[in-house]
């Protein structure tokens, strides 16, 4: 049964070698009163039965192979070339662990090194780590770095309200014990409002790019203002958009974080995803988590190793700035394989398809009576639509017609009641978009 290979004879030989009689003799230090409790867990199934049960559970979900998905809000339905999954299923990658022993881990180490390189290329930063848990925790870790760069004296963190609401919630969870003042995101502040909050107590200001509403704000003078106040500028960026848009580095960012899921990772009900984290050289020693560096072996051969290790929890213990140990390594592998096979042109093409299709959809929907699309700012592949009925009712009607509609913004932003955030990617054909527009028209009239 299952995966335990011992035969009765082997078990007896081994017990005898240890000097005990039964398996139960192996637990003398466990208090007798509590030893060997009942486990109320259903009886084992065979692999065949297990697979049938899981298939049934999976098919009880409304997923992107059965529905046309027009929902994003931090999790995006993109094309993933087959090669990505095939590489992830190499047991040499997925059944290894953290490359503590570089001589037998060069595959993982070089893959991470190449991943770091591509993240730096996209973001315009100098260094990237091997990953955080997701975009949200990456932002929370950026706060830790900014507090550290501010020598723990600057205690104010300015967050744009146009950062993903769940990311802002995670920042608050992470820093609730740290005497940090988190401001900026309580109302409808725009960039110029956020700038007025900068002062000598500010450690960082963070914006999302494109922002949670899909828009591209005008960041031209932002970096100068933030830096004049002695604070760090943090961008939460969609990495796929960066194939097309100016890099945050070019816009003056000091730290760039974000969700790497658009880079070859399926929707997967929200995880495992990939928190990427990139930073300028000046602050590289403040970074948390694993970093891979190039070096030579004793024969002069190029090789890779985890470096700057003394920052990490296993060495620095209570003086470490983060407790991260296990990260999202295999998701970084997915991203590096995806970026390799898409390449310079493929990634840009995917981003362009998103842009053109989203703009086509926005124009079409804007012309439907009762709907109005927010078009005052440039956008990438998401846009806000004011709808003629409650979003939950609208989405129910769309579901019946085979669509997963937009995200209900009213849940997080009181002033955006009856607004949905629609997302269009390369996965949505023109026919699908036209059908959505027709459905919206029918439901709205």
């Amino acid at each position, binding site marked *: 049964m*299952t995966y*335990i290979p*011992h035969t009765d004879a082997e078990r007896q030989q081994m017990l005898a070698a*240890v000097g005990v009689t039964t398996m139960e003799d192996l*637990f003398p230090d466990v208090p007798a009163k*509590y*030893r060997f*409790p009942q486990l109320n867990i259903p009886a*084992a199934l065979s*692999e065949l039965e297990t697979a049938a049960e899981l298939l049934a*559970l*999976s098919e009880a979900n409304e997923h992107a192979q059965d529905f046309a*998905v027009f*929902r994003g809000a931090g*999790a995006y339905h993109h094309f993933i*070339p087959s*090669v990505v999954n095939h590489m992830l*299923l190499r047991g*040499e990658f997925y*059944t*290894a662990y*953290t*490359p503590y*022993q570089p*001589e*037998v881990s060069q595959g993982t180490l*070089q893959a*991470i090194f190449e991943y770091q390189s591509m993240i730096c290329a996209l973001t315009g930063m*100098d260094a*990237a780590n091997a990953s955080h*848990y997701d975009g949200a*925790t990456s932002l929370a870790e950026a706060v830790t770095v900014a507090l550290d760069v501010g020598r723990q004296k600057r205690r104010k963190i300015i967050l744009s309200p146009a950062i993903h609401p*769940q*990311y802002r*919630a*995670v920042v608050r969870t992470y820093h*609730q014990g740290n*005497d940090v003042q988190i401001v900026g995101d309580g109302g409808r502040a725009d960039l110029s409002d956020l700038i007025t909050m900068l002062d000598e107590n500010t450690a960082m200001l963070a914006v999302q790019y494109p922002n949670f509403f899909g828009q591209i704000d005008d960041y031209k003078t932002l970096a100068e203002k933030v830096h004049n106040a002695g604070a760090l500028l943090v961008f939460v960026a969609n990495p796929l958009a960066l194939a097309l*848009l100016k890099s945050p580095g070019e816009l003056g960012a000091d730290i760039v974080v974000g969700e790497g899921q658009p880079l070859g990772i399926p*929707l997967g*009900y929200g*995880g*495992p995803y990939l928190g990427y984290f990139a930073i300028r050289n000046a602050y590289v020693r403040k970074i948390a988590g694993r970093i891979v*560096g*190039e070096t030579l072996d*004793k*024969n002069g051969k190029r*090789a890779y*190793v985890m*470096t700057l290790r003394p920052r990490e*929890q296993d060495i620095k213990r209570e003086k*470490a700035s*983060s407790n991260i*140990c296990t990260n999202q*390594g*295999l998701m970084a592998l997915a991203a590096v394989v995806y*970026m390799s096979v898409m*390449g310079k042109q493929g990634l840009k093409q995917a981003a362009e398809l998103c842009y053109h*299709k989203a703009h086509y959809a926005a124009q079409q929907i804007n012309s439907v009576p009762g709907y109005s699309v927010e078009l005052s700012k440039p956008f990438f592949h998401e846009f806000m639509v004011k709808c003629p009925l409650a979003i939950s009712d609208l989405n129910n009607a769309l*579901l019946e017609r085979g669509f997963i509609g937009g995200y209900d913004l009213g849940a997080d932003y009181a002033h955006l009641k009856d607004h949905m955030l629609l997302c269009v990617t390369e996965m949505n054909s023109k026919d699908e978009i036209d059908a959505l527009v027709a459905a919206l028209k029918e439901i709205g009239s």
Partner: protein
Amino acid sequence: MDSAIPTIYDISVPGRHGSKLPDVDVPKSDMPADLLRADVRLPEVSELQVVRHFVDLSELNHAIDKGFYPLGSCTMKYNPKINEDMARLAGFAHLHPLADESGTQGALALMYELQNWLAEISGFKGTSLQPAAGAQGEFAGILMIRNYHLDRGEPQRTTILVPNSAHGTNPATCTMAGLNVKELPSDQDGNVDLEALRAACAGDNAKTIAGMMITVPNTLGLFEAHILEALEIVHAAGGLMYMDGANMNALLGVVKPGELGFDVMHYNLHKTFSTPHGGGGPGCGAVAVGEKLLPFLPGPLVQMIEAGTDDEAPLYGLRMPEKSIGRLKAFHGNFGMHVRAYTYIRMHGAEGLKRIARHAVLNANYIRVKLQNAYHVPYNRICGHEFVMEGHFKDVPDVHALDISKRLMDYGIHPPTNYFPLIVPEALLIEPTETEDKATLDEFIAAMLKIAQEAHETPELLTSAPHSTPVSRLDEVRAAKQLVLCCSPVRQAASD
């Protein structure tokens, strides 16, 4: 410069295409030129080049699928292939995390069952699957303890007691949560020093105690002999008890931490429940709690909103607990890991889970007794799922645990965890797991005995090892000093 395998940038050729997407099928829209970038330094390679490159890289790794991987405290057991297939079922892999709850009932049902099973296995009242890794589970647990005391109007309870044998994540976690660490010594048998614990909780000290974090079995692989006393001392002081469940593989069906009196623990689903380690992650650090901490769990949790009937399935929904410490991540945790752990538990059932711990412990003890004459085993008694020995010989002072580790690679075996726990000099922490057969253990034992012999006869074989790996020992000082963190085309672009 000789390199084992060129980087993906080294084999890039300008103008080459990999994957191709469809043409634009809608009218194109203008793109504001001032928003666009000029170039992005990504490689240009063919799909076959990508496949060969990453297959070549994969072959440089040691992995469970290739050979024995007794990396202590990491539980490198077999990762069943069925797990991977289940996580990739379309209804899971292509499910949007913000889909309406009516359309995610299958995923929610799975998470609900897993929450309950994990509570049952550990003897707790509730579980949150939010934490992405053990360290995040610890963080959740310590924040819950902190907020429990705040909620009771005892903000002065800011000290967490941590034995000196603890994983580094334990003290780092306390600092992240804004609490103070007081380190406790271990006694001569490898247990937490009860006298030191009593002193730390005595008199006015008691009022500052928030709780204690303790790993069971501890990082020496030993079940704390005085665990009930430790629980009583800390509880009497008004503190809560956190169990680091990294070593839960030794306890499945053996003891329930919640029944012992612990208030909170985290699991590592990527250790105990076979979800793969992925070259560093992802994992899942599900956190389970007793009655006191239920309202503080990180959310959202899956709850049964309406019970099922004969004709209808129950209705599940995501809800935040009343006094939740908050979200630890966007969305609902590493759901793909939940699917794998669910699959694993479903295939084992209660009886199968009980067999896991017993065989993991048997395997560790078998190795221990076979190596105890050749190596010094400092706390030599029946151990849990792992044990520590010293990778050092008094009569061969130049050979260290590192050298033994590197030499093991030449025998095709991944080294044990070395130099941890910190309280044993030249530590080698060996965890075989239950999925290894006797023949594999015997090969490992033979290799270790041979290495002990080599250490005495030809120590340079060890100090210059490994000899058969893709690269030899690395210049780690150079890596840290020269700090090359990107492929050269990207570095050049940055300095342009």
